[in-house]
């Protein structure tokens, strides 16, 4: 297939062919890098703006490294350091960023739908780096990439996403991506954070920590997000750890070689026991490393496509 999008706004929008295209591209970039230590600077002369309106370490830095690895110039603007703190609207900020000659904007924002909003205002590629509780496409792609590396074809594989699903963009993007690739997805966690309505989107939903992990090929743990919980959704972190924390007993319910993913940042002792996080079952650092190749694939596809080059 030919990649035809100039923006990556969500995984829900993508076809399975498009997901596979980006994953394959990430794979070839990673192999090339491992073989020769570098990749062609195909984005040389391009200017990418990282517009990060919410705190982020991993995603922002991964996009920076990805852009630089492809020879692009990348400038990161963070919420605190931008004119948004002076009352400028996102619309005006984006128009200004476009006027400054950006070839692409990578945006992280607390408002769901804000990348789509931007894509209607400016005619440069928009890469969604996380919009509220809506989507986090690059995270899902790197998660799926890592799952494929470890498990091979994901068709009929049992993947459990455990934790704060309600407020999680990572869960939503992974749900779409995994379903499109044929995996069985279970969403699990406290009943207040895992609405039954997710069943209508194609997931299996459970609030039973035992059945959540039974026979799973992989579990993706999500951080309990204190900052998003405006209402009381569970009694305490200690209670969460007690009921849903991944310990050795819970681990034993999964398949023998089942793996553990976590998008970070990790709350040791809450979602996961510290020793398990450091064990060979956890692929958390591989996820981070794969994130660079995946983001290189995304940037290259969206920006080069913009110039009409075949890719």
């Amino acid at each position, binding site marked *: 297939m030919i990649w035809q999008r100039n923006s990556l706004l969500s995984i829900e929008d993508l076809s399975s062919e498009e997901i596979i295209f980006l994953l394959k591209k990430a794979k070839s970039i990673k192999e090339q890098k491992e073989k020769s230590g570098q990749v062609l600077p195909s984005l040389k002369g391009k200017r990418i703006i990282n517009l990060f309106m919410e705190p982020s370490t991993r995603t922002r830095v991964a996009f920076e490294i990805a852009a630089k690895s492809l020879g692009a110039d990348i400038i990161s603007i963070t919420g605190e350091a931008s004119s948004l703190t002076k009352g400028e609207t*996102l619309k005006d900020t984006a128009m200004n960023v476009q006027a400054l000659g950006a070839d692409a904007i990578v945006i992280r*924002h607390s*408002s769901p*739908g804000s990348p789509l*909003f931007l894509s209607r205002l400016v005619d440069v590629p928009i890469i969604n780096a996380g919009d*509220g*509780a*809506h989507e986090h496409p690059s995270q899902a792609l790197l998660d799926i990439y890592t799952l494929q590396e470890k498990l091979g074809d994901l068709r009929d594989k049992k993947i459990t996403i455990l934790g704060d699903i309600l407020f999680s*963009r990572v869960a*939503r993007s992974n749900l779409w991506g995994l379903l499109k690739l044929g995996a069985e997805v279970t969403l699990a966690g406290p009943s207040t954070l895992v609405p039954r309505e997710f069943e209508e989107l194609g997931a299996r939903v459970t609030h039973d920590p035992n059945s959540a992990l039974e026979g799973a090929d992989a579990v993706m743990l999500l951080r309990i997000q204190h900052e998003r919980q405006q209402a009381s959704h569970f009694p305490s972190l200690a209670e969460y750890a007690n009921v849903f924390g991944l310990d050795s007993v819970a681990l034993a319910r999964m398949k023998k070689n089942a793996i553990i993913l976590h998008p970070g940042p990790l709350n040791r002792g809450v979602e996961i026991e510290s020793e398990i996080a450091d064990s060979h079952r956890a692929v958390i650092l591989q996820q981070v490393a794969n994130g660079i190749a995946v983001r290189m694939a995304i940037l290259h596809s969206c920006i080069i496509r913009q110039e009409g080059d075949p890719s």
Partner: protein
Amino acid sequence: MSNNLFKNIDLLGGRAVDPKSGIDKVLDLFIRKGKIYHQPPDSSQADKVYHLKGHTVLPGLLDLRSHNRVPGAGKSENIETLTKAAARGGFSSILTMPDTNPYSDNPATIRYIQDRIKQTAKVNVYLSGCLTIGSRGESIAPLGSLKDVGVVAVTDCPYTAANNQIFTNAIKYAKMFGLTVIDFPQDSFLSNNSHAHESPLSLKMGLAGNPRMAEEIAVERSIIIARHLGVPIHLSSISSSGSVNLIKKAKDIGIPITADVSAHHLLLTEEAISDYNTSAKTNPPLRQESDRSALREGIINGIIDACSSSHEPYSDHLKDVEFDLAPSGTTGLETALLAFMEAVNLEDPYPMVVEKLCDNPHIILGISPPSLKDGSSANLAVVKNNESWQYDPLNGESLSHNSPLKDHIFTHKVILTLCDGVVAYSN
């Protein structure tokens, strides 16, 4: 309005529909000195003659929920543009909500608005005042003083008091003055920070959901209070199928409850926000097809008494932001009548239109409904049937353009609105 604005107008050959007056037939109407006559009352010539074959003439419509932005946000809407929008939509009267800035919880603010009305209004404007001070639900507003300066209804729309004791006492107190009490039923905790109907769609979009329950709990509260106090309560802008059931049960046992629904909620569902269209972000939120069809049924079988515009104007720059940062509310005065007709989808919608947009809204406010009878004040609207046109809010009268019905094709068109015998709108 001064008499020199009166025009002699002949409305010939249109279908006049006013069932309560026993009128539903092709009838020539002669407007002279602000009144309707079925025969020319004198030899004076018409200033303007309308030949209305294929048109329908309706008695003056009243909108039960228009949000006035003066004082406070005159750039979003002022009295002149609000009333021009109403007239263009076929309304000869509106009831404005008290969420002005400052709130309409004191006689001085009401007098200021009345002054603007006197100078610029094109249609009748009835004012509501706050039920509680600042609509904060903490203390009862000076309802007697508000009544003295001409307020006809009291409400905290688009909020409602969370404190049941204050809410109950405020209603009990309002009864002394014969004020219509309007509740905007929404539990403030269950709906807190929500941006959409709670559903798989809002989950998918990552938007905090407003559950049906948030409305139904408040609807049930008002029903219980109306029963307990024996005071009529009008429920504004219901949106959930469950509310329709609760209201039906209450009416079946004689509890004095009435309700309206916005035209948007009769015509649209949550799908309207699926591309994060802030112009379709309403309060209460648009819900699902099952709600829409229950609301339509409720209108048809008499459970829901009226249809309102829920006109909430916001300047473009306030809506042209991220979805969760955009205020809830849509314009509606220019489209409510037409949207209502399309949504009820009856072979002959007009008797229903007169009941739900003219007669019942007036009765709810304790005002005698306009009529097309010989000798009545000339409050009426003329609708051209089978006229296809595309709605563009930019060509409308409202200063705001936040309509979810942008580019919608309507099949009827308002061509004339008279308010007390004066042309408020003509096309």
